[in-house]
């Protein structure tokens, strides 16, 4: 697989398709299952063309039942396959929750390693696309809290391409979050990249270096975070943006190195804050870097509400302004909460 790099501009959607294709070509135990993924190519067209290429035996349109999809994937994994499951939208993963939490996550532990569950659960994810109810959910914290699963979220086409292949090749189950909001965003993808050489999916990435504040984001919020960093630069503030990539396990080495340098930390995500990924990152980093912290770490998250109607979502998904307000907070500059009791 190794060779010279071949950078190709691709949307994240097409990069995912390429990642699936290459995983399927490499290993004939890989198969894909989900609703509408065959003839239609999925509602987001991520599996477009794959049924023609690999046949209906490996690209399987299933009955409309998420527990059924994940439960049969468990059986296929028992038989030695590597199922890649597509959940049509984030909000439809809950009927499969029992199979994911009690079976997918626990079978390796239950059988003391005798049975492996190399299942990848792809979830088109999160908001900002003006969708109907249940089509903009951010359920990642549920899976991060579930031992036995690995959880990753991609933020650019190249990672989408490589990390999807790594997830599929991984012998553990991986919940793979794909930000819908970025499906049509283009970036350079090295289609010749050997996934063994690519950055392991467990590592965080410093997306932009900085010295004053560490800003941690994942998925589509990485873009917002980079925008915020650029805006802050005009104000003379240097923000280090970290793309978390792996939500579980977390690459605390990269995170704490950054916070030790900056002394200040902000986490942003779309999911509500309460017992979310941001809480985890802050609790752990506070433990690891307590004496380096010059201000309390701050979360900039969605409100703790059900995902709101589309016309109100811009007041829910954290934007550049809300991040910059948090930057002011950690730098002890005037900010929206200056007069509010915490």
């Amino acid at each position, binding site marked *: 697989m190794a060779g010279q790099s071949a950078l190709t501009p691709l949307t994240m959607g097409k990069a995912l398709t390429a990642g699936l294709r290459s995983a399927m070509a490499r290993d004939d135990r890989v198969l894909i299952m989900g609703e509408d993924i065959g*003839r239609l190519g999925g509602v987001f067209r991520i599996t477009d063309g794959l049924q023609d290429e690999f046949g209906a035996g490996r690209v399987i349109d299933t*009955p*409309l039942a998420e527990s059924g999809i994940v439960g049969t994937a468990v059986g296929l994994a028992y038989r030695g396959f590597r199922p890649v499951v597509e959940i049509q939208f984030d*909000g439809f993963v809950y009927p499969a929750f029992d199979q994911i939490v009690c079976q997918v996550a626990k079978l390796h532990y239950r059988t003391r390693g005798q049975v492996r569950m190399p299942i990848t659960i792809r979830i088109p994810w999160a908001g900002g696309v003006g969708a109907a109810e249940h089509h903009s959910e951010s359920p990642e914290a549920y899976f991060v809290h579930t031992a036995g699963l690995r959880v990753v979220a991609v933020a650019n086409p190249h990672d989408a391409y490589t990390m999807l292949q790594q997830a599929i090749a991984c012998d553990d189950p991986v919940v793979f979050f794909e930000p819908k909001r970025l499906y049509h965003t283009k970036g350079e993808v090295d289609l010749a990249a050997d996934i063994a050489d690519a950055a392991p999916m467990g590592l965080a990435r410093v997306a932009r270096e900085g010295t004053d504040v560490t800003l941690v984001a994942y998925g589509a919020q990485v873009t917002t975070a980079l925008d915020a960093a650029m805006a802050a630069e005009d104000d003379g503030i240097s923000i280090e943006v970290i793309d978390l990539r792996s939500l579980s396990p977390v690459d605390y080495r990269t995170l704490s190195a950054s916070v030790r340098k900056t002394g200040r930390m902000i986490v942003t995500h779309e999911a509500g804050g309460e017992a979310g990924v941001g809480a985890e990152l802050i609790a752990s980093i506070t433990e690891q870097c307590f004496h380096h912290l010059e201000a309390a770490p701050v979360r900039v998250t969605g*409100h703790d509400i059900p995902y709101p109607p589309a016309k109100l979502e811009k007041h829910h998904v954290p934007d550049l302004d809300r991040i910059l307000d948090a930057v002011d907070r950690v730098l002890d500059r005037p900010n*929206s909460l200056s007069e509010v009791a915490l």
Partner: protein
Amino acid sequence: MMHTLTTDPTHAADLDTVAQLLTPTGDRVSDPRLDRWADELEAAALRALYRDMAITRRLDGEGVALQRQGHLGLWAPAQGQEAIQVASSHACRPDDFLFPSYRELGVLVTRGASPADLVLGWRGEVHGTFDPYALHVATPQIIIGAQTLHAVGYAMGIQRDGGDQVSVAYFGDGATSQGDVNEAMVFASSFEAPVVFVCSNNQWAISEPVSVQSRFPIAGRAPAFGIPSLRVDGNDAIACAAAMRWALDRARSGEGPAFIEAVTYRMGPHTTSDDPTRYRDAAEVERWRGRDPLTRLEAHLRRSGAWDDAFAAEVAAAGATLAAGMRDAALTAQTRPAIEVLDDVYAEPHVGMTRQRERFAAYLDGFADGEA
């Protein structure tokens, strides 16, 4: 005792096995089991059915247009399914409680939802529009199949109140694969709850033909749970009405749940985001156009002398007025202020919400124009 297939193992889409009272050309035919439930339907009732079906068709077109023009985020067309939607809800009493999916426009029209109610959800202004207790209709459900359990629970409540209402669960062919729909039948049967299941088998679940969900007629599912079922031509308004009257009567008189599979067709895309040319033949759509529920009922009304131009004009006018109302509601919609994103999460005071509200209000205050 060997059990073999209990329903004819013909493909669920095979029209020949459905109960019919109107042929595709509008001839009134007989069905020994349904006649009794159709005979009482007077001309006035059939005209009322036609009226709401035609209005539903008109408003559905308006919804699609509004979406195409950018005034709505999405629309799930009901075209082709007006007969079962309207006839089934017409057969209900006002105090029967209906649990629709996202596609039951005809149910909402029958129940008198306002034009604004029909568009503000799809526009993304609110999740739910009307007050469920005003229309006796639950907020349309997006999670496939979830509402069937709600309908059964509601029916268990009716039993406990000693009421004689019925609850109705609407869902599609795809939904029958979901665990929830099967559990709903288990519970309904176990408690003999007064609930009617109405499955609109429109042949497709987005791009998946019904054969992916079921290689045999869906109506055969219910009897296995102890629920009698009827497979009816879902484009035949009279048969749909009769079937629903049979089912409601059973449920209302304490005989327990009933199940109707209405064999129909989704003429449009799954939603305005969908492109059905990727997965189905134009010829199939054309075939079904020949079984259009409106044309068919119109032919029958004409033949039986229950049609006149004044009626046609009145129906068209009523549709146009409501359609204009939809347009107006969509175009004049006022998005709620930012802070209201936090409203109604809890019914009672909640210290976490208070804290969030205080913080978000302070944040919004920082913007001169009050808008973040």
